[in-house]
């Protein structure tokens, strides 16, 4: 029975989908609706953990549906996808708890739609995580874009509409214009779209063609937010904070960089990338993105916007990891998916908690707030340390590997850029926490009333949990490392 369940990987999609149906059924009974969302979250974590526990080696492809001779929807298990799926499932559950606190605390409307599309987005994320071929990946990539659109535009204001326009326009536009074209070229060149260890392109295409194809793929994956297609991420910040936290710090953006890694490893192959020098353009593009986004982050006074630009810069780390075409660096990129997820979701949770408690959104208004909201701001500082890459926080490991990769490949300019970016990280993340603890309260807080206190428990517990995660994972990173090792060293 269990083995049968584990064979049918599509269950990972069905669980959130069923959760979504339950949400619809209980649309007029908020308690049951939110319980079913939570239940689906727990079930999904259990299921993915089971998959992970029983995993020994890459399984054969499980084909769900043959659309035509060349196109099929198929799933398989491999370490990278499993780690990404577990990450998304675990953080989904935590975010659901948080959303209950946040959405009620801010009296948001249309909650059924909110929870429904949230479930759909997670189902699409699972589809991306387990995709066995490029076509399946592409399908769920697009499904993820579309299912998050109603979440981004949740408030249905003019601002939400224009944010949604940029979001959808850039994500759909790049994917249709470049990603789809790259997909068809791959199909015609390699005669297969399957993900295979060592890649499928070797011997089918080389030189400039490989360089162009890789560039087309990376630019086409707009979710990875490379220059010049990163505007969608700040635009998506009009969404309620739980959406920004899970989707735009974890699921959507990580689906992008996950696709980057997966295509680099299983379509191109790391050795092939290095041999053909196919990733040079993307490497420099990512380095530029990393630095420029950090500088922009520094100039933003709106807390969520600052975090969004920080995310763009951190995503570029992962793309650099892939583009260095070196096992240690790619490993660093893969680990960074996990480490950055914990750090950044905490930061967003904090931003949401601050908004729920005080309605403040600007960095300059937060002076002295640390004494009123000690837990939130402590969690904020811990997470910021992790994103910066200080030990003993988990972010240190991935940064370490990335730097090691750039040393090994003798890309000293990349090394310098990492150093510069770390400094910029400190400059735009730390002051927020320090202001809150060490400066006198800002007069604008008076408007929020005298009794500012911590956000509701449903908000506070998740953000403390993820902040604790950044610390704990520092000591338990080895199993993840060992698990991912074979992906990059076949």
């Amino acid at each position: 029975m269990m083995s049968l369940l584990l064979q049918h990987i599509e269950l990972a999609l069905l669980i959130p989908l069923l959760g979504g149906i339950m949400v619809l059924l209980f649309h007029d009974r908020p308690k049951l609706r939110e319980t079913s969302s939570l239940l689906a979250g727990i079930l999904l974590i259990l299921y993915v953990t089971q998959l992970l526990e029983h995993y020994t080696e890459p399984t054969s492809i499980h084909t769900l549906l043959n659309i035509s001779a060349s196109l099929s929807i198929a799933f398989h298990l491999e370490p990278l996808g499993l780690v990404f799926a577990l990450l998304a499932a675990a953080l989904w559950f935590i975010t659901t708890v948080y959303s209950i606190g946040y959405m009620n605390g801010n009296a948001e409307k249309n909650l059924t739609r909110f929870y429904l599309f949230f479930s759909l987005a997670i189902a699409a994320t699972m589809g991306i995580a387990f995709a066995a071929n490029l076509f399946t990946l592409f399908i769920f990539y697009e499904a993820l874009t579309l299912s998050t659109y109603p979440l981004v535009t949740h408030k249905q204001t003019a601002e939400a509409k224009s944010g949604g326009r940029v979001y959808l326009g850039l994500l759909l536009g790049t994917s249709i214009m470049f990603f789809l074209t790259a997909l068809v070229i791959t199909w015609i060149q390699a005669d297969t779209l399957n993900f295979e260890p060592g890649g499928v392109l070797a011997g089918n295409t080389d030189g400039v063609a490989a360089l162009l194809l890789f560039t087309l793929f990376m630019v086409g994956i707009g979710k990875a937010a490379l220059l010049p297609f990163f505007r969608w991420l700040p635009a998506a910040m009009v969404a309620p904070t739980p959406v920004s936290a899970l989707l735009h710090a974890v699921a959507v953006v990580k689906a992008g960089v996950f696709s980057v890694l997966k295509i680099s490893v299983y379509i191109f192959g790391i050795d092939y990338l290095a041999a053909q020098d196919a990733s040079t353009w993307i490497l420099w593009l990512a380095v530029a993105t990393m630095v420029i986004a950090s500088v922009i982050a520094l100039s933003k006074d709106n807390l969520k916007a600052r975090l969004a630009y920080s995310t763009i810069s951190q995503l570029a780390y992962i793309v650099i990891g892939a583009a260095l075409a070196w096992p240690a660096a790619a490993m660093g990129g893969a680990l960074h998916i996990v480490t950055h997820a914990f750090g950044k979701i905490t930061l967003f949770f904090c931003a949401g908690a601050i908004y729920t408690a005080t309605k403040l959104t600007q960095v300059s208004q937060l002076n002295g707030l640390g004494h009123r909201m000690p837990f939130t701001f402590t969690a904020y500082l811990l997470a910021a340390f992790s994103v910066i890459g200080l030990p003993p926080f988990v972010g240190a490991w991935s940064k370490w590997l990335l730097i090691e990769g750039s040393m090994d490949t003798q890309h000293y300019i990349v090394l310098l850029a990492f150093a510069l970016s770390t400094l910029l990280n400190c400059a735009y993340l730390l002051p927020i926490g320090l202001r809150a603890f060490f400066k006198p309260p800002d007069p604008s807080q008076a408007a929020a009333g005298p009794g500012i206190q911590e956000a509701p428990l449903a908000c506070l517990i998740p953000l403390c949990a993820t902040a604790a995660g950044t610390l704990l994972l520092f000591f338990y990173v080895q199993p993840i490392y060992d698990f991912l090792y074979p992906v990059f060293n076949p």
Partner: protein
Amino acid sequence: MLGHLPALQVIIPLISAPVCVLITRASWAWLLATIVSIASFVIAVLLVHEVSAHGVLSYHLGGWEPPLGIEYRIDHLSAYVLTIVAATASITMVAARKSIEQEIPSEKINLFFSAYLLCLTGLLGIVVSGDAFNIFVFLEISSLSSYALIAMGRDRRSLTAAYQYLIMGTIGATFILIGVGLLYMLTGTLNIHDLQQKIPAIVDSRTLHAAFAFLTAGISLKIALFPLHLWLPNAYAHAPSMITVFLSATATKVSVYVMLRFFFGLFPPDISLEQFHLGKILLPLSIIAILTASFVAVFQENIKRMLAYSSVAQIGYMTLGIGLGSANGAIAGMVYLFNHAIIKGGLFLAMACVVLRTGSVRLEDFSGLGKRMPWTMAAIVLLGLGLIGIPFTGGFVSKWYVLSAAIEQGHWLAAVVIVGGSLLTILYIWKIIEYAYFKTPVSAKLQNLTTHEAPRQMLLPLWLLVIGNFYFGLDTSFSLGYASTAIQTLFR
């Protein structure tokens, strides 16, 4: 009985048309038209099975042997197109009743259905006919009746639209007639199968060149290929709502069929492509069609007009596939035709629902429609995704095959245009969505209007098309499989 299916396919609607004139009760006329449409769908499905089982069906009208006698010839391609035409006709008719009763004066309803049945006869006749002159005759039957149908639109602009279409359509039909006449002059036969055998011997004849040129121009006019498309936006925008549904899903599609039949059947494909350079004519025009028509669609304020321009662009995709000059390209064109019939038929049907309830298809009057007509708007969103070519929809499958056929041939410009057209599609579809979901009605007229959802009789067929759009995005065994067989028979 089964042996007479090809003839029945034409005769049933043909005989029902005059019968319909005699029926004065509107609802009975509708019932007759619906039953006849469904009957022709059943016949089309039977023909699909017959052709799959026994190969090409050749029916000799009156028992006269071809090439002297008139032949109805059903191969995979004909059966495929027959199914599309008859299926969309049935769905349209099932949904039509309320909308027609509202838009057409009651004393004219029987005449309306009679004209519709004649139009259906013509369209089905074009597809079953194995004889070039008969194709022209049926083309005229369908065209003349569609001029009348379009002229019955809601306001007087439909008269000018019909007149414009009449002039252009007649020029097109005349050109086709001249082309067929020249062919007859050269070969002494009108039978397509027979012509195919005789043409290679006379390929250097100038008369043949002239015939080919006349046919190309004439058929392009009927297809509404850029720059001969000007009749189409007006005709679609001002025709009665249900006629737009019917014509958009069938008329241009049948014209695309005629193009395939003439240039890859009557003329052997290698002659059309290599001697007469069909690709060099079709490709640039298709590319311009996709870009300009999509671009113009973005700026339309009348949504029926927007969708009509979108049709011109989508026709460009089909002719682009054909113009690529490979079997895969033509297959892609056929798959595109199939999925587009479902998508565009569905979108225009949704427009019919909106017209029924609000009486307007202006963009600003869509404000807040997402709340007031949730099912209709949801259908528009889902079909719109198909039009853009989002995975899981039939529209994706067709775009995928056109794109891969273009890249396979190394036509990079075409590839860029194909994806670029999709981006423009996002723009105009999203305009509708933003109005419907993000705006509240401004005009007092619409605020006071208590709009409610369209009747179930229209919603069910509409959602059938929505489901079809997704079904054929996942199961392509018929849409792609049958089209491949059809085209491969032509190219062999």
